[in-house]
């Protein structure tokens, strides 16, 4: 049955739906303190049973072997954020597992935590073996002496956000015949497999990871987290299937959080409006442990800081700093929205200073030809796109309604490419893609590309579940990469098979394909740079108590080629609402003791239907050089939407907005 039909009929197989014989339900004892010594743990499975640290896998991961800030699977000696796993308990049913939490005794000795990343720079190191809380610190660009008429400075911030997929994290680990089989809600079966093998020291052939239907990821589910390892370890230890389904509260306190970046920006310009250069400091709040993206993120933000502008000079310090909060991780956009927010906020500031029109100042600084930024980012000429987008968005007429606009560059995470396997047997082509779906609609582009390349109709294609036993090489889904390199891997493999048939039979036909047996796998390599442009426009209004309401968000993105127009549109609409949420209230809040103040998905700010603005989507198609001609898309709306909304609110209120989410006091 088709995937969507299964879902609307309630026949999805999300990880909690998978039935196994006599599973053990797992619950996790978590630190109630943001920073504490642990003088002893009695009961449950704890660090005396398993002493290991998380292998760094997934988006932006680097080598983590000797990392003193690597995340321990179970806290030992001390814990560093509210929600950090200390022990795990197991029971025959979920209620019993919750009850068993009481059976674990932990002797805490609370310490003074550090919550603000700016403070953390000079605070005593929260980990032994480190000289400071700074886990990465680099300079990008070159210092310069600007001869500027105008120097503008500001401190800008995007607060932390919980990814909040409606399906929380979950895993079902089964151990039999010396082999571990993992069903997991994930963006990458390969990350989970490599991570489990790396963390537990298991040989690759002893672990099989199968993707369960996955109810949204938004960045979080690209990597491995301690609970995955605990469940796998427990399954091996108890020789029983172990199931762990995260509660929403656990999600808010212990799942990686995104955004959480500060930009201290300095912009140099001429009176004409021409921007001469930027300097600044980017600080990313890494949370308590240096995982995956944490060290990489600030440099990535700095890399794209000049966005679509031909700004010749740039010199930026990029820092990632540990604090006593849940670890940092990607959230849809993962650095891109932060960079665009920091840049476009400064451009708006300059527009206000010079009393110039928002579009005019942007066009003045646009690149007229391909441009390499002082931080090494390559872009095409942005001006033609920007001019077209302003028209498509109806800027001139919407201006009268206090519309805000914002532009950005989408730098996708397409490297190093993607894996694919095509198997033709029994009159069908079975497709495994390394980048798996959890709401992006891979089905749509797989079908349209298979029709285009091989003439296959949907019922001649079987889209298979990512399973490391069936597809050996692949990456996963994040960074707007799936249509780009997943699609291109499929096209490349399809063309390979077509050639084989031509060689053998002198011609290609669908019949020849489907009547034969093929099993072809490849890893389509890509390490080029295909960046794309996007623009948003938004209108808003203020309610009776200065409560902002977003009326309409318009989007215009260059998607290269829309492999399925309907799905592209639907992806953009969903992203617009997430971008709107970031401005309207999405945040995970901590008090000065590092205690979590956010206690539900509602007060984390996930937008409800009554708060969702009208969306208008314009798609532009300037084909990329990839085999399927696509460009990045998935993250575009979370980058552009906040830019336009905050600008609209500024036009309405005359108040400068420096951070997301916007609070009522920012507007009065």
């Amino acid at each position, binding site marked *: 049955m088709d*995937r*969507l*039909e*299964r*879902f*609307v*009929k*309630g*026949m*999805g*197989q*999300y990880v*909690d*739906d998978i*039935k196994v014989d006599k599973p053990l339900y797992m619950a996790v004892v978590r630190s109630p303190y943001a920073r504490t010594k642990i003088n002893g743990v009695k009961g449950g499975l704890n660090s005396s049973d398993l002493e290991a640290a998380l292998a760094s896998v997934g988006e932006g991961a680097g080598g983590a072997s000797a990392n003193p800030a690597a995340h321990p699977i179970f806290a030992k000696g001390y814990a560093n954020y509210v929600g950090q796993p200390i022990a795990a308990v197991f029971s025959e*049913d*979920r*209620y019993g597992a919750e009850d068993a939490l009481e059976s674990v005794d932990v002797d805490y000795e609370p310490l003074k935590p550090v919550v603000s990343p700016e403070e953390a720079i000079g605070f005593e190191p929260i980990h032994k073996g480190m000289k400071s809380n700074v886990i990465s610190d680099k300079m990008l660009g070159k210092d310069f002496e600007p001869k500027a008429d105008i120097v503008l400075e500001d401190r800008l911030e995007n607060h932390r956000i919980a990814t*909040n*997929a*409606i*399906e*929380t994290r979950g895993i079902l680990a089964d151990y039999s015949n010396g082999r571990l089989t993992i069903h997991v809600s994930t963006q990458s079966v390969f990350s989970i497999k490599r991570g489990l093998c790396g963390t537990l020291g298991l040989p690759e052939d002893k672990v099989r990871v199968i993707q369960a*239907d*996955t*109810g*949204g990821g*938004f960045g979080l589910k690209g990597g491995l987290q301690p609970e995955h390892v605990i469940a796998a370890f427990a399954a091996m230890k108890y020789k029983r299937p172990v199931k762990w*389904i995260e*509660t*929403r*509260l656990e999600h808010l306190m212990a799942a990686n959080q995104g955004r959480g970046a500060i930009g201290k920006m300095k912009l140099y310009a001429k009176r004409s409006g021409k921007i001469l250069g930027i300097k600044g400091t980017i600080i990313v709040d890494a949370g308590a442990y240096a995982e995956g993206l944490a060290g990489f993120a600030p440099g990535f933000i700095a890399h794209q800081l000049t966005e679509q502008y031909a700004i010749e000079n740039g010199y930026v310090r990029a820092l990632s700093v540990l604090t006593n909060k849940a670890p940092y991780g990607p959230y849809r956009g993962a650095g891109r929205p932060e960079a665009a927010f920091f840049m476009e906020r400064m451009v708006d500031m300059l527009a206000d200073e010079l009393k110039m029109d928002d579009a005019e100042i942007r066009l003045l600084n646009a690149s007229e030809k391909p441009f390499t930024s002082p931080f090494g980012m390559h872009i095409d000429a942005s001006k033609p796109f920007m001019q077209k987008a302003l028209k498509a968005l109806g800027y001139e007429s919407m201006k009268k309604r206090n519309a805000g606009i914002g532009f950005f560059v989408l730098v996708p995470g397409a490297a190093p490419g993607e894996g694919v396997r095509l198997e033709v047997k029994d009159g069908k082509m079975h497709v495994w893609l390394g980048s798996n779906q*959890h*709401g*992006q*609609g891979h089905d749509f582009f797989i079908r349209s590309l298979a029709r285009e390349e091989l003439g296959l109709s949907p019922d001649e294609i079987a889209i298979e579940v990512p399973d490391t036993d069936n597809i050996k090489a692949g990456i996963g889904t994040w960074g707007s990469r799936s249509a780009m390199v997943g699609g291109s891997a499929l096209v490349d493999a399809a063309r390979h098979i077509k050639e084989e048939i031509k060689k053998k039979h002198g011609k290609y036909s669908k019949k020849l394909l489907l009547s034969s047996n093929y099993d072809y796998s490849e890893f389509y390599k890509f390490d080029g740079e295909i960046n794309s442009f996007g623009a948003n426009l938004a209108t808003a209004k203020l309610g009776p108590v200065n409560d902002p309401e977003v009326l309409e968000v318009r989007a215009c993105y260059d998607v290269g080629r829309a492999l399925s127009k*309907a*799905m592209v*549109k*639907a*992806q953009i*609409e*969903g*992203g*617009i*609402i*997430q971008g709107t949420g970031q401005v309207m209230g999405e945040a995970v809040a901590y008090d000065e003791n590092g205690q979590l103040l956010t*206690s*539900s*998905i*509602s007060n984390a700010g*996930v937008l*409800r*239907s*009554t708060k*969702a603005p009208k*969306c208008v989507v314009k798609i532009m198609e300037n084909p990329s050089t990839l085999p399927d001609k696509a460009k990045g898309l998935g993250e575009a709306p979370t980058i552009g939407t906040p830019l336009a909304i905050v600008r609209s609110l500024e036009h309405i209120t005359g108040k400068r907005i420096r951070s997301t989410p916007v609070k009522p006091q920012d507007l009065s």
Partner: protein
Amino acid sequence: MKEAKPKIKINGKDYSATVEPRQLLVHFIRDSAGLTGTHIGCDTSNCGACTVLLDGKPVKSCTVLSVQADGHEITTIEGLSKDGSMDPMQKAFIEDNGLQCGFCTPGMIMEANYVLKKNPHATEAEIRKGLDGNLCRCTGYVGILKAIRSVQEKKK
């Protein structure tokens, strides 16, 4: 611990199980009756993923105890396509991109059908209001609203 033995009719079929008195209806539906189309997305009755009909009216089944549903009738998402064919709302959700990851979808469809049943002429604002307790992280509600509107149109 004390035990209870609620008898609950789900999608026209009687189910009964020995459960703890604290068991939530959503767990009776999922674990005792084995109908996993009804999902759990939160622990604060905010998300609506667990929405089912209790005697014809939508409830968040994570806010009801199984024993409270004893002797009552429940309709879950599985009850909408009994002979295997989809009901109009299920079809419209597929046609109008009313779902992406699909996790909110069962609750959303249960609520959507009720909104139209209660008020066949509901305006867009009224439909949005009706869905206010059902969160979707993927679609931005755009495809969902379109699907509901198209079912409404066809019924006219």
